[in-house]
């Protein structure tokens, strides 16, 4: 095994532990738990009331627009990480802290325009 891949052994162990716990919980509950099925028990759970209508109903398109905003900020977050990691070193190398700061702030400001636009268009107004 090459040297640099050895760093990922803890990650592998955490994956293994997570899947071990998940499978153990599923298998033990199946083996040990009593299974008495009644009609009420098999009903879909809806906060204690009797379920109304089909669960596979269509959603409002508003959820899609909120999803779109999530993508906006997701990409912003993943781009912010390398910037934050190199900020100090780059500011020293270029001798100009403000420039490195402004680079990212222009990026964030552009995306923020999109956020304000979506807000003004009434996506967050759930009553409409």
């Amino acid at each position, binding site marked *: *095994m*090459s*040297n*640099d*891949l050895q760093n*990922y052994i803890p990650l592998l162990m955490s994956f293994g532990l997570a899947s071990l716990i998940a499978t153990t919980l599923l298998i033990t509950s199946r083996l040990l738990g009593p299974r008495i099925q009644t009609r009420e028990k098999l009903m879909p759970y809806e906060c204690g009331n009797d379920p109304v209508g089909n669960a*596979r*109903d*269509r*959603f409002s*398109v508003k*959820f*899609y*627009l909120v*999803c*779109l*905003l*999530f*993508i*906006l900020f*997701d*990409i912003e*977050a*993943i*781009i912010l*990480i*390398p*910037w934050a*990691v*190199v900020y100090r*070193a*780059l500011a020293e190398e*270029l001798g100009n802290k403000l420039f*490195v700061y402004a*680079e990212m702030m*222009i*990026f*964030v400001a*552009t*995306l923020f*325009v*999109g956020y304000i*636009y*979506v807000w003004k*268009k009434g*996506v967050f107004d759930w009553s409409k």
Partner: protein
Amino acid sequence: MTFQQLLFIGFAALVLGGGIAVVLLRNPLYGAFALITSFVGLSALYVMMGAQFIGAAQIVVYAGAIMMLFVFVIMLLNVRADEERPPRHRFLVWLAAPLALLLSAGLWLAVAGVQGDRAPSGEAGTVERVGKNLMTRYLLPFELTSVLILLAVVGALHLAKREKE
């Protein structure tokens, strides 16, 4: 065969299996989940190559954001599995498999003999290296990316929003 090559074959099988499942499964929701396994395999391959940042971004952006958008739209439109139906052009079905094989063979021949200039090192794709290049030499494409995403959000909002009646 070294351990790394075995690891590559395992992840490549995950990637290809996910990809084939996307094409074969009739329900788009299952296809989306198969695509997520394919992305996870790709992310592991990136990390194996030493491109740690791309591997992380693959999970966060592709498996996290883009696939979530797909699954959401599938739920939103309440898409069911495609029903079987008679193909309109029957001869095209028989043409498809040979052409697909031809495409694969052509691509294979094009890339099979390529040699790398140097051995990959673990430092090739660290977050520091990516960030430093992104913030200095390739600043303009980086800033323009934000404009692209802004345009996409504005356009998608107008397309998806229900017009007032």
